[in-house]
């Protein structure tokens, strides 16, 4: 038996004078008084300087001889268990059995304060004022040592109860905690507990636990940065730069990401059914495509990414157009400027992402299915000039008096109201060619009677065009029935003026069928290949007789300039479709648009 204090008493000895006579009532009385004397001493100590020292004096049972004193020691220990003799971290005096001793190594920070000390745990933790050498003996009166499991439980609940307190601790503190958790994490069972704790700071300011999460370090060996807007948890870069925390996060499963992994994630996000591309900004979407490109990733053949369009709409890559290299002000540029009103065209900023990299648009086309327009082909046109008709038409236009046309004069004058949707032909100063019928809206009615004129707005003006409003007259306008108004079916084979799908331009077409609900019409547009059938909403299919002066053939009209070109030896090659209004000038191209079939 080891006692940490000395005892002197008038014990009576055996005849050999080397041992206490254990059966004597006298000796037993003295022995029993020992317990009382010790307990009284502790009461005194708790009032004075030895308050935090006295546990050091606690006798501990051991196998050593002197069994005579054992009952006294047992009695001392038993009684102390039930008395409020120890101080808690909350500075209350409590029963030893209700206290946990927190081993400072490893459960306390560098200043000796337990990581888990809070107002909720203080009453259950043995006061920190007890020196380590005094605490040792408290186990004999019921103080138990905080186990790693309990530590993690306390840590978990402390963080859950007051996340702010935890998150605002110093970097040093977090580093020290990580150091402790690293040690614990070598035990599989404890590891699982640590994974449940929300202790990983993310770069977006949130915190996460490790369990079931795909977490990445923000920095990687590559120079790439993970684009924003994809649901991947990235660890806060400051936190991960601390060696201890980094080791901890690594052991919790945080990975240094590799580009292909992120690429797959980007794609997964985009292809998920509940992904709302509008929730991302143009820059975010650009960063996604740019990331895949920079990572030199080879997406699967079916990969389809969301893009931002020129109009800040969202469009899947496989329905998107991207301009080829075109000179400013070239006819191609102008046609493209016109096209992007009608088609989903990639947002300008995409090209600015890598302004000097010619491979970037090519990569988009090859890997993400974008269509490059205009597609440039060698011009070739059958030599079949039609100068007379053209000139006639020109003359008509030049007179600036549409009513002079005999055909137009026969038609009863139509009246249009402000706000009405119409198909109309623009009259552009200096342009003598007949313009396309395009979609417009009456924004102003000028005058009345015979001189009634209109101002019609082009909702998708050419890029760079200062003017989006055109003066027009009824003869240059065709009414578009309002949505929902009852409409008659067209005969099959009738020639109509119809809005070409995904554009704002009307072209001649032939009726092939009407849908059962009469809402849609199937058409073959003039100059489309015979198999290229289009479905158009009924109200955009207009009954409008084409001027008899126009050729009925499928051949595109050849303008005066084209005729000149022909004279210079250029040949326009047959394309399936040549948009009207194109005015190749200086360059010998016809433009072939490969349109999307819905």
């Amino acid at each position, binding site marked *: 038996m*080891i006692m940490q*204090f000395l005892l002197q008493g008038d014990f009576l000895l055996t005849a050999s004078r080397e041992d206490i006579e254990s059966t004597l009532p006298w000796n037993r009385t003295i022995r029993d008084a*020992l317990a*009382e004397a010790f307990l009284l001493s502790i009461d005194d100590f708790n009032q004075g300087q030895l308050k935090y020292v006295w546990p050091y004096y606690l006798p501990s049972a051991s196998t050593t001889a002197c069994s005579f004193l054992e009952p006294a020691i047992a009695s001392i220990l038993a009684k102390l268990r039930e008395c409020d003799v120890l101080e808690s971290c909350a500075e209350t005096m409590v029963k030893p059995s209700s206290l946990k001793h927190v081993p400072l190594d490893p459960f306390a920070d560098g200043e000796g304060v337990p990581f888990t000390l809070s107002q909720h745990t203080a009453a259950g933790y043995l006061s920190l004022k007890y020196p380590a050498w005094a605490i040792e003996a408290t186990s004999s009166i019921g103080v138990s040592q905080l186990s790693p499991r309990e530590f993690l439980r306390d840590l978990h609940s402390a963080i859950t109860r007051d996340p702010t307190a935890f998150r605002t601790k110093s970097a040093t503190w977090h580093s020290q905690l990580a150091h402790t958790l690293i040690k614990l994490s070598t035990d599989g069972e404890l590891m699982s507990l640590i994974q449940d704790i929300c202790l990983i700071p993310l770069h977006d300011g949130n915190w996460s636990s490790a369990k079931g999460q795909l977490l990445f370090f923000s920095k990687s060996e590559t120079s790439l940065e993970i684009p924003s807007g994809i649901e991947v948890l990235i660890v806060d870069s400051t936190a991960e730069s601390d060696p201890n925390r980094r080791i901890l996060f690594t052991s919790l499963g945080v990975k240094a990401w590799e580009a292909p992994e992120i690429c797959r994630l980007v794609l997964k996000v985009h292809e998920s059914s509940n992904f709302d591309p509008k929730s991302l900004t143009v820059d975010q979407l650009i960063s996604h495509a740019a990331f895949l490109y920079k990572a030199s990733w080879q997406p699967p053949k079916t990969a389809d990414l969301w893009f931002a369009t020129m109009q800040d709409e969202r469009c899947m890559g496989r329905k998107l157009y991207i301009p080829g290299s075109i000179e400013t002000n070239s006819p191609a540029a102008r046609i493209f400027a016109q096209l992007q009103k009608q088609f989903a065209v990639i947002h300008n900023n995409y090209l600015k992402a890598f302004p000097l990299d010619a491979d970037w648009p090519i990569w988009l086309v090859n890997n993400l299915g974008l269509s490059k327009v205009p597609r440039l082909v060698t011009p070739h046109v059958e030599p079949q000039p039609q100068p007379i008709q053209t000139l006639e038409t020109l003359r008509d236009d030049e007179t600036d008096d549409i009513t002079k046309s005999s055909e137009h004069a026969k038609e009863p004058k139509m009246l249009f109201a402000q706000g009405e949707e119409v198909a109309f032909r623009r009259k552009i100063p200096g342009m003598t060619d007949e313009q396309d019928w395009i979609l417009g809206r009456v924004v102003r009615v000028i005058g009345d009677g015979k001189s009634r004129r209109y101002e019609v707005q082009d909702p998708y003006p050419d890029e760079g065009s200062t003017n989006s409003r055109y003066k027009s007259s009824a003869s240059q306008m065709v009414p578009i029935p309002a949505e929902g108004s009852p409409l008659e079916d067209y005969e099959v084979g009738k020639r109509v003026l119809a809005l070409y799908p995904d554009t704002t331009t009307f072209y001649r077409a032939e009726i092939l069928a009407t849908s059962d609900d009469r809402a849609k019409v199937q058409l073959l547009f003039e100059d489309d290949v015979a198999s290229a059938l289009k479905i158009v909403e009924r109200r955009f299919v207009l009954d409008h007789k084409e001027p008899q002066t126009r050729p009925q053939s499928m051949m595109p009209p050849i303008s005066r300039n084209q005729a000149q070109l022909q004279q210079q030896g250029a040949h326009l090659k047959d394309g399936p479709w040549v948009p009207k209004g194109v005015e190749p000038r200086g360059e010998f191209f016809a433009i072939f648009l490969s349109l999307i079939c819905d």
Partner: protein
Amino acid sequence: MSFSYKPGSLRIDCNEVGFNAENVEAICAISRSTKSGKTMDGEYIGEKGIGFKSVFKAADVVWISSRDFTFKLDKTKFLGIVAPVWETFPEKTQPGCTSIYLQLSNGYEEDLLIHELLTFDTNLLIFLRRVREINIRVKRGDEQVWEKKIRKDESQQGADRLTVLHAGEETSRYLIRTHVIKDLPKERKRPNWSQTKILLAFPTTESQEQPQLTPQNVYAFLPIRNYGLKVTRTLSNHCPRLV
């Protein structure tokens, strides 16, 4: 008080009051200790019946010099341990001191005595009420003399006593608490005692450092027990009595 050993002898000097005639008579008689029944209030004295004669376990001849008395007791002579022979002390004596000189027996294992002296438990001094200072000198052959001085300072701290022990460079402090025991059972060896007391000595330090306690006790243990100095292990429940 001092113990001085040199091969073949142990000398003990003490500055106590000294012997009177009665003491001399008692020291020579069997079972006639002057201690018996002397106190009944729980003060400590030696155990009745164990006394001076135990020195003849180790020594053949014992010289004593106290006040005016100078005599020897010689175990080798007939009735030598009860019949003092007036004879001059073998060495120089100091005035005011009682000196005892043991001529150790031939068969006595002096190494054990040396060990005992070298490892003398400083803590024994705590409960030796009248002893303030103990000096121990050991001279073996031609070696240098080994010396140890132990000093005790006592002061009162409230109801408790603070004892500071100085042993060489080391200092140890004890808080001594006294607990009085009443309602004692009848005991033949302690007739008519109404109370006794136990002392608890708690090691302390001036600052909050860990008190040092155990090492000395380990050494103090067995040898003392084996050689009749009545100290039980870490419990010094009995004072050594040499007189």
